[in-house]
Each structure stands twice: as C-alpha cells, then as structure tokens.
C-alpha cells in the first residue's frame, strides 16, 4: 500500500513500483537510489527486468561539495537503457531543480519512460511539472483526479515551448 494517489498520463493508476532502500533486496519493480545504480550497474544490467531510479534534489552527503546542489541528472545518461522509470524528488516544493532535470531527461537525453514527481508535489506546481515532461504524479491521498485535471487546465496556453506539445505563442502565432 502507498499513501499517495498515483496518476499516470492523466489517469489514476495502481502503484506497481516500490522504493527500495540501498541495503534491501530488490523486488521485481524496484526504484533505487542513484548511488546504488552506479555502484551495482553491471549486476543490475545482468539482472535485466524492470528498474527505476530516484533522483534527489538535495544532496545530504554533500558529494558535490558544500553547496548541496543535488544529484546531477546527467549521471543517468549511461544507464537510461536499463531504466523504465525515473522519479524526481521534490524535497520541498520551493526547490525547483527537478524541473530542469525533467527537461534535460526528456529533451537532451531523450528518455521516453515514466517520469514521475515525488515528494512535496502540490496543486499549483502540477501544470508546470507536466509541461517539463513529467507524466506521473504521486499526489496526496485525498487529491481527486478531477482536482488534478482542473489544476492542469488553469492556464489556457503557453508563451514558450517546453517538453509538452504546446508550441508557445511566440512560435505559434501566424502559423
């Protein structure tokens, strides 16, 4: 059981994945840390099967220096062929690093699997996350699908292209 309401591509969807601690055994649809992915890459590749990873926006171990920049999305590049899910963690909604991570994954690393938002994922951010290429949302348990769809439709258009289908007014006018 999860305590969130999972919405994928605009539909309520049962959770088939689980977040697995670094020292716990894998199940058949595990979401693991970037650290474990890098450490055990060869074994994981040999194992085959479904694999997901969670990308942290905070870096508690300060592996990238004192400035706590979070995990680097580019480090996923060598492993993307093994991954069918990337979960981008938003430790607090004000930390917007994950929006760039999502666009880099979709538009520069051409990741086509499930891209989800986990953590502090709130009403007023869903539409922007969606535009950045996130297609799966771990919503608070009491959020209805209807509320989710309302949030996504609050703004009727966009000025700029991102990782969704909208061209952006600067490009679409006169076309």
């Amino acid at each position, binding site marked *: 059981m999860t305590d969130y309401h999972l919405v994928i591509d605009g539909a309520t969807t049962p959770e088939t994945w689980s977040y697995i601690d670094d020292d716990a055994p894998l199940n058949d649809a595990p979401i693991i840390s970037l650290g474990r992915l890098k450490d055990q890459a060869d074994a994981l590749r040999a194992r085959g099967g479904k694999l997901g990873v969670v990308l942290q926006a905070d870096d508690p171990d300060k592996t990238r220096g004192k400035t706590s920049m979070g995990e680097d999305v580019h480090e996923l590049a060598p492993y993307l062929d093994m991954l069918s899910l990337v979960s981008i963690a938003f430790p607090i909604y004000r*930390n*917007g690093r994950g*929006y760039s991570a999502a666009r880099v994954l979709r538009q520069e690393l051409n990741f086509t699997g499930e891209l989800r938002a986990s953590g502090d994922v709130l009403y007023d951010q869903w539409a922007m996350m969606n535009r950045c290429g996130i297609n799966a949302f771990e919503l608070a348990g009491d959020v209805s699908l209807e509320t989710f769809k309302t949030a996504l439709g*609050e703004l*009727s258009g966009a000025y700029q292209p*991102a990782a969704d289908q909208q061209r952006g007014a600067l490009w679409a006018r006169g076309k």
Partner: protein
Amino acid sequence: MYRYDEFDHKLVADRVDQFRGQVERRVSGALTEDQFKPLRLMNGVYLQLHAYMLRVAIPYGTLRSEQMRMLAHIARKYDRGYGHFTTRQNIQYNWPALDQIPDLLDELASVEMHAIQTSGNCIRNVTSDQYAGAINDEIEDPRIISEIIRQWSTFHPEFTYLPRKFKIAVTGHVNDRAAIKLHDIGIVVKQNDAGEVGYEVHVGGGQGRTPFVAKKMNAFVPKAKLLAYLEAVMRVYNMLGRRDNSYKARIKILVHETGEDEMRRLVEAEFAKIDASQMLTVPQEEIDRISAYFAPPAFETLPADSDGFTKAQTADADFARFVRANVVAHKQAGYAIVNISLKPIGGVPGDATDAQMDVIADLAEHYSLDEVRVTHEQNLVLPHVQLDDLKTVYDVLAANQLATANLGLISDQIACPGLDYCNLANARSIPLAQEISERFADLDRQYDIGELKIKISGCINACGHHHVGHIGILGVDKKGTEFYQISLGGAADENAAIGQITGRAFTEEDIVDAIETVVTTYTDLRTDGERFIDTYNRVGMEPFKERLYD
C-alpha cells in the same frame, strides 16, 4: 507600443482567475500561509509592516495614457490615493486588502496590465532604457527584445521555482540608463561587422549583501538565438545555483564560486544543445510582428528650433532652469524628451498621487503621442514632446508640483521604502532623503554641485541601490536604533562600479552633516568641469575620510 492579442488577453485573464482561486483556498484554510506565500509573491503581493503591498508590472517602463489613468484609479479605489514608482520601473501600492486584490487585477487586465512575476523566485519584470525609441544613436529599440523576453519568461514552467529571484535588463544605447551590469542578466544591443543586430550578454551582476558587477559572458548572440542563450544560462543556474543559503542563492554567487570561465563553458555547452534543437529560435515573422509595435510613432516634420520655445525660456527663468535640468534632446527634429522629477524638495522619492497620475496621463495623451515612461531612478518621462508644446506642458507640471528641475542632481535621490513601510528594513530611508533634499534645497547650489547621485537603502538587500550611488547610504540597526553607513564611488551606468564604505556609521542626527562634509570636500577638491564621481576617481577615498572622521 506592444498591444495584447487574444492570446495575451486570455492568459492574463486565466491568471487572475487562478489567483482568485488561490486567495479563496488560503482564506478557506486549504492552503497554509507557507504554501500560499510563494503563490501570492508571484502575483506581486507582499506583506509589509502596516498592510499588504501590491507591485504592478510596467514592462520595460512603458505606459500608455489609459494605463497611467488606470494606475491612478487603482490608487483611488483600492489604496490611499497614491502609488510608489520603484527602481524596477514598477509601481507599488502600500495598502490593498488581500480579498480585493483579485478585483483590482481584473481592472488592471482591462488595460493590458498585471502583477505577474513581480516578486518570487522567478524571472521578474524586464527593465530597459526610459529613453528607448526617443534618444539618438540607438542601435535598436531595446523594447523589442524586452517584449520577446517578457513573453518567453512569463509562466516559464522550468524557471518558476529558481534558487532566488532573477532580473534581466536591456539597453540599446551606449549610455546605460538601465544599470544592466547590476542585473542577473544584462543585455546590450550590438551591431556586428556585418551590420547584423545581436546582443552582448552580461551575467552575474547584482547588489544585496554581496554586490558584483556582471561579467561579459558572450560578446554577440545573434538576434534569433537570444532566447536559446538565455534558457541555457537559466538552466545552468537552476541546476547548480545554491539553495542552502538564500544570501548565496543569486546567480552572481554561482558565477563567482564557479569562476567566469567555467561558467561560460557550462553555458556554452547547454546553449549548443538547445541551439541544435532549434526549438527556441524565434521565427523571423514573430520578430517582425513584435518589432512593428515599436516602429517610430507618427512624428510630425518640424523645424529643429522653435521661436516660441526660445522666447518662453527668456521670459520665464524657472522654465529655462527646467529645460536645462530636465529636458533631453530627442532624435526627431522639433521634439524633446521631458523628465518629470518625482523628487520634490522634502517629498517622498518616487511617490505620485492619483491626481498627479491623471495629470500626467492627460499630458501624455495630448502632448507625448500617448506615452509615459518610468525610470529606474524613480522618475517619469514624457518621451515625445514637441518643442512648441514644452511651455504648456511645463506649466501644467508646475501647477501640480511635478516640475522640480533637479534631474541627476543631489536632491534626485533613489530611496527604498525603508522602515516606514518595509518588513525587511533596519532603518528608515525616506526621512533621510527628505532631510538631504531640504538641506540642499537651493537649486543654484544644486547646479553648482552638478551631477551627483545619492542612493539610500534601509537594509543590506539594497533596494535603494546604495552600492552604486556616487554617494551611497545604508541604514543599519544597532540595538533598535538607526545608524547610517556611507559609501563613495559607486556607479550604475556603463562604467558600473561598487562604492567603498567610508568607515564607521553615523547617527540619524549626524548623517546629513556628514553628507554635506562629503559634498564640500568634493567642491573644494574638484577641478574645472569635474563631476563628483570624476573627482572621487581621481583623488580616492582618503581626502573624504580625513574630513569625515577628523
């Protein structure tokens, strides 16, 4: 001027509805204050000492007369009969009620205005040269690319929760009146050897606790690629900017800690990827469409001189002084640029009443081809006034306490709202500006002192630009009492520089005398024709220090 199309109108209306819903969710308890705060900030709603404050965007400082009239109406209906023009070319209202702000925003939207992204950790209102389209020797009207940037940055899904706020300024002239080197990104319109127009991009300037002059990141970005370049800068910043300490979260700190060369490498690498995708290359038809809005207005063909204008100056010495101080040459023969000082002696810098705003709107409609500009030095401009109309315009301004002839002089000070209004301030700014302006009230003395920019901030956030004042004043709090620190030698123009602190701070009682000491030190030491900043740059800090602390 740019006019909204159906798409622009709809999006602003959507945003008002969205904010109305957010206010309702806050009042109903569905949102906590912690959740609501960034949402209200992104609509320009702050909480100050006495009430909420609403900051309305004036993109690149350009207004039509009907928009100025709406600002007056809002001051009357939703506020206390006045507004405060800011260093970011915006206007702030100090007393709106939260539950009335959605209605206020509806009214603003009816004249193509809004408060979108006037606060919050997002890309803020783009600022520019107040003389755009009116001054000679401009490479291109900077409002064209400013409008393109405004649209690109509005509701940008990737850059709405940045590490910290982000400010972009543009100039199209070699004389920088937009302080572009003190912005997160500063853009200078340039022409290359082939005659093509593009942009020199400076990154990492800013004031606040740790001031920096921006570094030149790219000497020439072609016109159609500027958004791709800006998106690259923003992405590098959003991914690598610090989020552990809000005082170290601006891009200036990232540039400083990463190093200019490494920052350039990171930006260029990202730029190459975005540019290759072509997705942010703005179509020529859209550039042309937006450019057409900023085509020169319908100037009349007039002689370069006006007898009536010349005679009026001879007949009216006050008018002649106004012309000398506040009127600037226009690119079009027979026209002039008229600066309206919002710094009357003893007044609140940047404040205008609803009645004054209405008067200025009328003047713009009848005598300035419908346009008004807001300057980052908290004054207003009628950009296109015929020489033959100057005296009439002056008389109306004078009758409404709007004709103070002090542009660029010691009483034309920038001051933040300070502790009279602001939640962050440590000391008051406005009373100090008032005392200084009263001490130097004599205009002849001001003309003798010449160009001298005093800038006053009530705390280290530096909204009053004290770091870049020729004389900067910073208010500090010592155990609940106000003290004021002086810095000298700052500049916000094309020779941007951060001022140096003179030494220990002065009490409220002593600070105006100290400023006078600085000024007399300058007048004693200057050579013929030397401005304050020239003398300071020649003689340095020591002579001033000696006189201040003897």
